[in-house]
């Protein structure tokens, strides 16, 4: 596989925008953790602490109207594609204003726009693996509609053991569909270590069974993830078929907040602590002389402020109306949840004015 480094073409604004999104991802999750401790989160909280980099960097390789399907730990991916944090806070708190009107949890929401300008977001179901055939289908649909669209989705080390993963990968390979799969080796599936999940050395070896092009990257090196993702996205758009990118990372929290992770060794956690993707990327920005401390702090403040504003808005939202419970099982119901897509303060990706608060937040 080519070793082109598309990250070299990223502008300063884009490099900073990447930083903004990865910070925003962590800030939103930490805010959620607070809400969780305050018992304001309904059900569980699933963190991507320590893996935010791969979600953000991989999705950043997509065009703004491409399709992405995130798993519950890919908050960064949907933020990059324009989902506003308020929607995510509302989901976790089961608010009536949430993209699913309180019907489904966390990142289980979709955005299927009519036009071709907006991003397509396909929400996961809990049953792991199904997003692979479904996103292969999105790629197939795009081809049939004559749209040069790329579909990106994610699968955990555990998820690769499902039959649905196999059927979807094989179908995408045979049909040469524009699908990019980010396979996340974060060392555990709930409490199950990768060694009990698969008998192969690297997760990307799963792709060998399908003749799907694959590579393994350091998942905590955002530029490396971006490079591999961009190469795969470009291949897919050129009609060269699906790719699988294995990302080597680590789940730094329990499966969900209730999980004390006693099955994970301290040394392992310490080793990965030192490889935190955000700290690494921040240092890189300074090293590459793309930003100084003050500018980075400015971005961090922007992220934190935005997070607070959005959390406050969501908190103030009321729960759904019980009377709507039977609505919308079939077409014709008057309930069609959608997601509000916002622009980044850098607007490089979404073409909004640089700096200033997010378009939506200004309202």
């Amino acid at each position, binding site marked *: 596989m080519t070793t082109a480094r598309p990250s070299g073409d990223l502008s300063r604004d884009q490099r900073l925008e990447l930083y903004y999104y990865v910070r925003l991802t962590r800030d939103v999750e930490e805010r959620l953790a607070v809400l969780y401790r305050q018992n304001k989160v309904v059900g569980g909280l699933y963190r991507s602490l320590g893996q935010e980099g791969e979600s953000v960097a991989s999705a950043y390789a997509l065009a703004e109207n491409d399709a992405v399907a995130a798993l519950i730990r890919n908050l960064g991916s949907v933020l990059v594609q324009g989902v506003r944090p308020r929607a995510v806070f509302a989901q976790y708190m089961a608010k009536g204003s949430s993209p699913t009107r309180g019907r489904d949890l966390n990142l289980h929401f979709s955005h299927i726009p009519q036009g071709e300008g907006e991003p397509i977001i396909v929400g996961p179901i809990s*049953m792991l693996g*199904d997003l692979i055939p479904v996103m292969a289908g999105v790629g197939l*649909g795009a081809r049939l509609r004559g749209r040069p669209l790329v579909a990106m989705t994610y699968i955990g080390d555990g998820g690769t053991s499902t039959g649905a993963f196999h059927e979807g990968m094989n179908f995408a390979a045979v049909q040469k569909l524009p699908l990019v799969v980010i396979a996340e080796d974060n060392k555990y599936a709930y409490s199950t270590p990768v060694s009990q999940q698969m008998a192969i050395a690297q997760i990307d070896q799963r792709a060998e069974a399908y003749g799907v092009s694959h590579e393994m990257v350091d998942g905590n090196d955002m530029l490396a993830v971006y490079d591999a993702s961009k190469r795969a996205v470009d291949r897919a758009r050129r009609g060269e078929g699906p790719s699988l990118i294995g990302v080597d990372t680590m789940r730094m929290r329990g499966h969900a907040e209730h999980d004390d992770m006693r099955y994970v060794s301290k040394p392992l956690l310490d080793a990965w602590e030192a490889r935190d993707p955000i700290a690494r990327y921040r240092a890189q920005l300074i090293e590459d002389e793309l930003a100084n401390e003050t500018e980075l702090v400015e971005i961090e403040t922007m992220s934190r402020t935005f997070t607070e504003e959005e959390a406050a808005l969501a908190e103030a939202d009321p729960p759904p109306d019980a009377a709507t419970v039977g609505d919308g099982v079939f077409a014709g119901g008057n309930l069609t949840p959608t997601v509000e897509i916002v622009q980044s303060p850098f607007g490089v990706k979404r073409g909004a004015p640089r700096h200033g608060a997010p378009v939506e937040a200004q309202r």
Partner: protein
Amino acid sequence: MAETTYLEAIRQGLVEEMTRDDRVYAIGEDIGAYGGAFKVTDGLLERFGASRVIDTPISETAIIGAAIGSAYLGMRPVAELQFIDFVACCFNILTNFAAKSRYRCGAGVPMVVRGPCGGGVSGGPFHSGNPEAYFLHTPGLKIVEPSTAYDAKGLIKAAIRDDDPVLFLEHKYLYRRVKDDLPDEEYVVPIGRAAVRRQGDDATIVTFGAMVLAALDAAECLAEEDIEVEIIDLRTLSPLDFDTILESVAKTSKVLVLHEAQRTGGIGAEIAAAIAERGFEYLDAPPMRLASKDTPTPYSPVLEAAFRPSVEQIVATVRQLVEY
């Protein structure tokens, strides 16, 4: 005009819809070059090309997944399961992803999942299934099963135009056994409406699919005893047309629910329970059910005959009802 078989009628419906709307496409195993195990899609590949008639690997979950994803992009997939029994292999993605998508996220999934169901042809335990009850209990799915060639064409067209996932059950026993003289002008049979196949005042038989033929035969025998049976062909199994059912029961006060799937937990349970609940005052006899035995479908013709409801059993049960 020539008579058209149930099987050809489905094909005509597919061809008309694919011609009318280029978002409609077919996907499944061996549906292209081979034209499908039962030849339902014969000729479609030549007519619409490989991009709209897609042969897949043996991957039912991928077939349904592909249908769902492409439906999100605005396509109207018609997925074939080589035998409807294989729906068990995509049960999860169909019931959890497709069926719940609109309610959860407002993301509708207009798609048709069609395949041959039913027994009477020595298909054995894995090629004779009637899985409607599983999906009746799955909010978000519609289910259709025609018993005539006319309905087969009209309902496949309605299913393709429907904005929600529709399970289209084709009874393989009827494929080449029933024919109709189809109108030249286009028509659609609306989903959700039952049809009264025979008028009668003495008892109502609620049934569908191949059992409609058995019920009609039984009605003939019973007529000789001056027992006039009303026969309701459900056509749509979900949502059920209780208006038509209750109207008939109000008239006859006696009802037999007849189906080919195993009895316990079958669709007949829902129908009989709803009649008992909503039509209690109409009933002069217990709402009865006649269905297949609670075993897997046996392969031997001798055993399968003993497994499925027979015309004799229908006649005997209706007699019981009338004499009650």
